[in-house]
């Protein structure tokens, strides 16, 4: 299935530049794994990096550095090591989490150990990521999340289920790439829980009285 909601151009650019905070980069990677359109835009962004690399002003390399490089080549085996076998992925295994999430949450959806943080909302927070917060959220079907806006960047990708908000309908593979100016109120679709992976690079700023309600949800 081809996603309908994609990474923001500014996000793609920063991903290519290696400048995206770690938590946001994980969610972007999950989307890139399944979105050819965004991979094409990433290649465009990498080409910009290539030209900027070319433009670096430099001197001729030192003779001793060249000699050291040749010594390293001598130490290389004559025959290229065989390429590692391609990752065999069962395409439609609904239990398998995307590979970019394995280091943080394991590889099985069923094995996840959810913790309730608000009525109808469960969460798992990744630990030790540095550079923002990364979490899985599981929201009961037909839930209306309190209205909120974002203090910084927030990137969310749906893994299962769906929700609707002012930006449209979000199903599996779709990303919501939001900054501080978005004020939205997702409503999850009926049927199955909405499971998504979300990352922020700054504490969420909530509008009005809902702040207290949401504090336990996002841990601030």
């Amino acid at each position, binding site marked *: 299935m081809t996603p309908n909601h994609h990474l923001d151009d500014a996000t793609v650019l920063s991903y290519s530049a290696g400048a995206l905070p770690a938590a946001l980069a994980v969610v972007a990677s999950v989307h890139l794994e399944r979105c050819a359109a965004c991979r094409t835009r990433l290649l465009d962004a990498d080409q910009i990096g290539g030209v900027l*690399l070319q433009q670096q002003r430099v001197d001729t390399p030192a003779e001793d550095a060249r000699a050291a490089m040749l010594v390293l080549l001598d130490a290389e085996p004559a025959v290229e090591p065989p390429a590692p076998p391609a*990752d065999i992925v069962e395409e439609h295994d609904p239990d398998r989490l995307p590979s970019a999430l394995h280091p943080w949450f394991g590889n099985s959806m069923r094995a996840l150990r959810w913790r309730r943080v608000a009525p109808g909302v469960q969460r798992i927070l990744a630990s030790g990521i540095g550079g923002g917060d990364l979490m899985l959220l599981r929201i009961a079907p037909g839930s209306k999340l309190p209205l909120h806006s974002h203090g910084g960047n927030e990137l969310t990708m749906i893994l299962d289920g769906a929700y609707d908000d002012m930006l449209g309908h979000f199903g599996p593979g779709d990303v919501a790439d939001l900054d501080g100016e978005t004020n939205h109120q997702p409503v999850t679709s009926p049927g199955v829980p909405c499971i998504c992976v979300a990352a922020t690079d700054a504490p969420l700023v909530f509008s009005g009285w809902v702040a207290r309600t949401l504090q336990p949800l996002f841990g601030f």
Partner: protein
Amino acid sequence: MMDSDQAVAEVAPFRAKRVVAPPVSNAAPDAQYWSIQMSAVSAQRDRASFMRIYDHFAPRLQRYLRNLGVPESMADELVQEALLTLWRKAAMFDPARASLATWLYRVARNLYIDHVRRQPHWLPIQEGLDRIDHVESARLDSQPESSFDQDILKQAIDRLPPVQAKLVRMCYLESKSHSEISAELQMPLGSVKSSLRRAFAKLQVSMRAPR
């Protein structure tokens, strides 16, 4: 800028004879020139071609990493690591997809994120994305012809309005996040992102321009 053929020939005279590269002209080497050097490296393990790539790109990679704040000795190591990766994986290089500069940029950026930013999961994720792209381009009947001209993109970068140019450089050459740029320039986060979007859109237009 540099012609290191002689120096290489002294190191490996028996290999220098097999060089298939065209004579080095005074013009800056273009993408096709690098593509020819890369085929010599991958097909014949040609050291002279490798050292031409080294002489051009090693100092640039070094400068790129130093600008990112990598200490000199570590930058030296990462440059060697990047060039060794090129030696080992030369067969993976596909000139129809990306220029050699772009390919090396990715390798160096990945090493930077892995070694300096210490995101140990970045490399396997990037290798995974590479594999997906390889499977995909192998499945396509005809390779998409790279309609991309580095010179046109370079000119488009040079023509960016000053603020957009500054933001693009802060992203790529200082590895600053949107929030960091926003704080440093006292510019609202939304404006940082919309300026970057506009810059990217312009540069993409230049990449799609007919030659």
